[in-house]
């Protein structure tokens, strides 16, 4: 990767993460006093960061393809022996894409939160955590080496924990936060081992060095091990099988959190990581297959779960897991550009739907069960319109962004001879459209099913504006990329390589199939849930016990509980009640007891009689004389 570094760009890279960091610091210390101004300050700072990002990226794009790279060295972070790591920032088209998504969507979500969290007494804290999250996420994608990336990785994990458990007085929320943190920790630890191996093999964590010399330094097996370890981290963060269990529970956090962290940004960090490290994965080959398989399985698994959920946010959660699976499918097929485009599109429409769901929940006075909703399109027209746009985008209806992403993916699958992937991907697309349709129908169409729905009201403008902007974004992004070779993928090429394309079904045929599948599925969903002609309750009962199983995530949680959690708790109990109480305390108290007893028995030597002391003295003297006599 040659690169004349782009100087003024490089000089101002630090501003992008620095602005939200400043926001976090200020609101952390002064949040309570600022009141609602905390939110406004935080939002302004993220918008400012977006502005800088935009300027920087536009500047970057004025340069020709090969030289679109800017590096900024902030300071020497670690310098031990021969091992050096700098706090370095790197801007290429890959990280450029990410920062625009993060700051852009992040800014809109902050704006939304000003309205959503307006009555919360701790909103200062909330915005501090949100800004902190944006800072860490930016560091994650702007890092020029794995350590800065890992810093951001851990940081977003922390902020996720803090924000999921934001309403910590409700015990379930604290549990959910803990679950999220611990589950991702498993992945993070494996990833750390991967980083250690990288240091071992390369002596550095710098991207340029590693990706430049990986071909000659790593054997296939070494690359496989490292890549799989890194992917383990991605599995955790992006909630893929088998570590997907934390994401549905993470919906306990406020809805803006779900939108920002668990839809648009943090969960996509895994995808970013793999795309960034694609050199290692490609040397391995096996690793890419693993990624592909995991993606396929997860996409299908999560889609089946999404169909059976009643909580509107949980539908979206499982949907996110499923869509992330799609992104990994693309990565596994080496279609990195497609994967990144999918990421961008998904960020837009998923954030949109989450914010819309938040709007619905707000209007329904904190009711989240879709069975209590219905007919909300009359009371909340703006929410309905924007939400539907987002949903249709996800379902893959042209000319919205999701269609292009999904179509591109299936096209790659078909053209590279991966028929199984193509078929399964299409099935998953059908399911996706179905649960989207179900969600929209149950929430907005038909008759109102409860009092809360009767008295629902539209949300404030400060919450609606982001919805509208995101909806526009969904359309625009779609237009930017009208084929797998669209503008976005092309921009990414210098970093990720071109997407290999072969031949298969013709492009129009594929488009036709995709659209047909989407529309068919939506129509079916409308027939069952929206038209009022089918008794949904009876329908569900006929599908039991699969329906309940699907709703409960196919009992993966329960399995983990039995196999891992309970034994761990038993072990903890054993350690604390037996080992700690008896052995360690026994030893410590035993020593104390020993001292006490020896003292109480030893003190009897002090008889108080001078004569005994004199006797002992004489005894000692005789002894010493004896020694001297024997020796000499």
């Amino acid at each position, binding site marked *: 990767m040659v690169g004349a570094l782009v100087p003024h760009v490089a000089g101002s890279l630090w501003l992008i993460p620095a602005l939200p960091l400043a926001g976090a610091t200020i609101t952390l210390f002064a949040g309570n006093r600022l009141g609602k101004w905390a939110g406004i300050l935080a939002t302004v700072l993220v918008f400012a960061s977006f502005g800088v990002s935009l300027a920087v990226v536009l500047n970057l794009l004025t340069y020709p393809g090969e030289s679109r790279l800017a590096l900024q060295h902030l300071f020497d972070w670690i310098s031990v022996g021969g091992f050096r790591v700098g706090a370095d920032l790197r801007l290429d088209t890959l990280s450029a894409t990410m920062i625009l998504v993060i700051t852009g969507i992040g800014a809109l979500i902050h704006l939304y939160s000003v309205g959503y969290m307006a009555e919360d007494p701790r909103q200062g804290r909330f915005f501090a955590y949100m800004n902190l999250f944006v800072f860490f996420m930016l560091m994650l994608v702007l890092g020029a080496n794995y350590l800065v990336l890992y810093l951001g990785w851990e940081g977003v994990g922390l902020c996720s924990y803090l924000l999921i458990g934001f309403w910590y007085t409700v015990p379930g929320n604290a549990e959910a936060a803990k679950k999220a943190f611990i589950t991702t920790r498993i992945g993070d630890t494996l990833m750390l081992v991967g980083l250690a191996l990288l240091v071992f093999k390369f002596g550095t964590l710098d991207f340029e060095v590693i990706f430049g010399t990986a071909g000659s330094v790593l054997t296939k097996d070494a690359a496989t091990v490292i890549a799989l370890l890194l992917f383990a981290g991605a599995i955790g963060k992006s909630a893929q099988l088998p570590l997907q269990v934390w994401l549905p529970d993470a919906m306990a956090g406020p809805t803006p959190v779900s939108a920002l962290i668990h839809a648009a940004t943090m969960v996509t960090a895994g995808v970013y990581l793999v795309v960034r490290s694609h050199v290692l994965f490609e040397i391995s080959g096996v690793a890419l297959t693993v990624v592909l398989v995991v993606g396929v399985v997860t996409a299908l698994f999560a889609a089946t779960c999404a169909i059976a959920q009643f909580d509107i946010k949980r539908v979206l959660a499982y949907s996110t897991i499923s869509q992330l699976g799609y992104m990994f499918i693309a990565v596994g097929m080496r279609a990195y550009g497609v994967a990144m485009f999918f990421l961008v599109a998904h960020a837009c429409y998923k954030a949109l739907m989450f914010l819309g769901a938040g709007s619905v929940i707000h209007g329904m006075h904190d009711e989240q069960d879709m069975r209590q909703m219905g007919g909300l399109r009359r009371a909340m027209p703006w929410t309905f319109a924007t939400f539907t746009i987002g949903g249709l985008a996800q379902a893959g209806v042209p000319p919205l962004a999701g269609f292009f992403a999904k179509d591109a993916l299936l096209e790659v699958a078909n053209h590279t001879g991966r028929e199984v992937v193509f078929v399964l991907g299409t099935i998953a697309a059908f399911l996706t459209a179905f649960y989207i349709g179900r969600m929209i129908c149950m929430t907005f169409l038909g008759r109102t099913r409860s009092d809360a729905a009767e008295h629902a009201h539209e949300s404030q403008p400060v919450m609606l504006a982001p919805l509208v902007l995101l909806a526009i974004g969904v359309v625009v992004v779609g237009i930017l990329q009208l084929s797998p070779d669209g503008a976005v993928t092309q921009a990414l090429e210098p970093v990720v390589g071109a997407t290999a394309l072969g031949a298969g079904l013709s492009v129009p045929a594929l488009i036709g199939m995709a659209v047909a599948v989407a529309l068919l599925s939506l129509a079916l969903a409308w027939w069952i849930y929206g038209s009022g002609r089918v008794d949904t309750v009876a329908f569900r009962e006929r599908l039991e016990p699969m329906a309940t199983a699907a709703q409960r995530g196919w009992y993966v949680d329960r399995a983990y509980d039995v196999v891992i959690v309970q034994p761990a708790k038993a072990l903890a109990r054993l350690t604390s009640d037996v080992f700690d109480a008896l052995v360690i305390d026994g030893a410590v108290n035993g020593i104390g007891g020993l001292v006490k007893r020896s003292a109480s028995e030893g003190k009897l030597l*002090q*008889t*108080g*009689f*001078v*004569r005994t002391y*004199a006797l002992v003295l*004489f005894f000692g003297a005789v002894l010493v004389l004896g020694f001297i006599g024997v020796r000499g």
Partner: protein
Amino acid sequence: MRTPIAYFLMLAGILFAMGTVGVLINRNALRIFMSVELQLNAVNLTLVSFARLHNDLGGQVLAFFSMVVAAAEVVVGLAIIVSIYRRRRTIDVDAAREMRW
């Protein structure tokens, strides 16, 4: 002088041992003190014997000093015993056992 010097030294040793026994066995402070004087005398005898053995008058001089100091010591010691008696009405050394467990 035909007697081997070692005999004098043995005598001194025996007297010293008996003095020690007296120190350890007696409870009357005065008797203990007297036993200490016996010990001191045994040591003086040793000194003089060695002076004779090595033809060195220094031994006798040292014994002389020992006697002087012993005299001073007896004076002070008896004064102490007297004042202890005044305070406690007894000179039984077993009575002074407050510093016990």
